[in-house]
């Protein structure tokens, strides 16, 4: 079994999602896809290098961190929605220089 194609597909989907979607929730889903691809890559590298236990513990750390990322991201989305009544990222363009 080779997980490398799956990892690349997941990563590509995540990037595609982040680049094309304009809905903040969809962006969050894209970000999660990226994160899952990374987690899988770390576990798979453990299989390849024969250090499964070590990489599994790393994967658990990543999952915990992702939980926090999701929580903060959702909080930001909620605050943004309250401010502008929309989830469209076009509204965030005020930061343009």
């Amino acid at each position: 079994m080779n997980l490398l194609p799956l990892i690349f597909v997941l990563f590509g989907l995540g990037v595609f999602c982040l680049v094309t979607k304009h809905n903040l929730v969809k962006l969050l889903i894209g970000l999660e896809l990226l994160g899952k691809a990374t987690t899988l890559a770390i576990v798979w590298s453990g299989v390849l290098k024969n250090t499964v236990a070590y990489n599994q513990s790393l994967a658990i750390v990543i999952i915990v961190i992702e939980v926090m990322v999701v929580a903060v991201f959702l909080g930001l989305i909620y605050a943004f929605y309250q401010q502008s009544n929309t989830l469209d990222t076009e509204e965030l363009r005020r930061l343009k220089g």
Partner: protein
Amino acid sequence: MSSEFSALLILLVPFAGAALVPLLNLLSPRIVPAFAVLVGLASAVIAFFLPFGMKPGVYFSYEVLPGVFKTGLLLDTLSIVPALIATWIGFLVLIYSIGYMKKEENLSRYYSLVLLFIGSMVGMSLSDNFLSLFFFWEVMGVCSYLLIGFFYADPKAAAAGVKAFIVTRIGDVALFGAILILYVLSGSFEISANLAYASKIGLPLLTAISFGFIVGAVGKSAQVPLHVWLPDAMEAPTTISALIHAATMVNAGVYLLARVHPLLAQVPVSVETLQWIGAITALLGAFLATFNNDLKRILAYSTVSQLGYMVFAIGVGGVFASQFHLFSHAIFKALLFLCAGAVIHELGTRDVREMGGLNKEMPLTGMAFFVGALALMGLPLFNGFFSKDMILEQAYEHNSFGPLSLAVIAAVLTAFYSLRTTAMVFWGQQRNTKHVHEAPASMTTPLVILSIGAVFSWLLIGRITASWSLSGFEGEIIGWKALAHETFVSKAFMMTAGAIIAGYLMYMKKTAIGNFLGSKLPVVGKSAGIGLGFDAVYGGFVAFVYGFAGFARNIWEEYIMEGINKVTGAVAVLSSLLARKMQTGDIHWNLVYIVITLIILLGMVL
């Protein structure tokens, strides 16, 4: 009480007293003067025990920084004489202050600073290394600044304090430079080690060091051209003038020169310089005193002149003569100042033209002043006569006739202005309508003691010379009879006596001379009246420095620094104009950049 123990005590007692005065003032301001006098008496009594059983050497040596700096108390005759003078004159001044300063405010500050002043003078003279000597030297500078400006509400007094501080600072910088050069060369701050090391230093460097010491002493002891602070210091309370002129401040420079004389003697040019500085100062001081009408300024210029004699004596190798004159001068100058203080206290003016005929109302003060004036002009059998004669004798033996002639002319003028001042203040008719009284007992007691000292202090010569040779200095032990005999048969006696007679004749013809100068050479009196323009030159120099500094500051601030600010601002604006294009504000484009960067980095790694 052994001399070592009293040396330790005498360093502690004045400082402890100075620290306790403000605390006592919280309890009761009325006991402060009495306490200060007690501390003064204690230090004077302790100082009295210093010479007894004295074995010259360093005591209580303590390593502050191991291997770098250790400090101790140096006891020999050279160091004990200034300590004795400082404590005894200081004690008499403190007694006198009870009456003189009775009505003033802030007495705790006054007494605390006086004690600190005395203590630092003692500390300076007993220091065995240049670093603590310099420390106490600076403490004295601060004390003089604070005490000259004691009446700080008066702008003239405040300015005089600042002037004294700044002018003496010039000398202090030079002195510190000399000390540092010596330390770099010899690796030690110790005075004796450095003096022994001096013969190994090359002549150019040794010249620089000796000139550092000379400039330091010139600043502190008010020699030409840095004498300008001393007459202005007359804004201080008269007691402080007496203290500065007789006991502490100005003696420090002469003491320093005497202490480093073995080093100075190795540099012919510095010895020559000392002779000329001393002689010119003696003449200039006497000349300016002749033409002044402010009683305290006359005395100040006479101090300048007498200090010139001392420096001149060191220049011709008469270290003992200079210290002997220092001793005599301390007594009669303190006497003169305290008498002047009593007169000014009663009359409320310092102008001698408004005085006169005070002998009737103030006989004791008048007598004391006359004694002091006779000692100042060097009339035989007064202490000033013997020490001044010794200086002239030394100069004669040293064959330095150029400076010697100046010093003799200065002696003529000294005799003249001493007589003139005494006559203006105490003799003749009263020229004002004020009703004056004799000063209170607390003020006249020191006058009586000092008058006795001014007549008889030279009898101590035997004791001083004995301990002098014990301390390992050159010179034979002479008793007072031998001194009197030697003085009267010496060649210098002719000069001293001639100077006094010439001065007396000048005094007799003073109206004629005054008319001649007034009609033919008015420039003499005018230029002397403004102190020969030293102040104007220095003031002009300072104004020039201020002006130039303001101009330079303007250029630097308004053009150079402001220009740099403008250029950096413009660069920041320009670069931000360029860089803002990169901020699209579009999260998707940012992500595209991130992915592209990721691919590039991956490509570099793989």
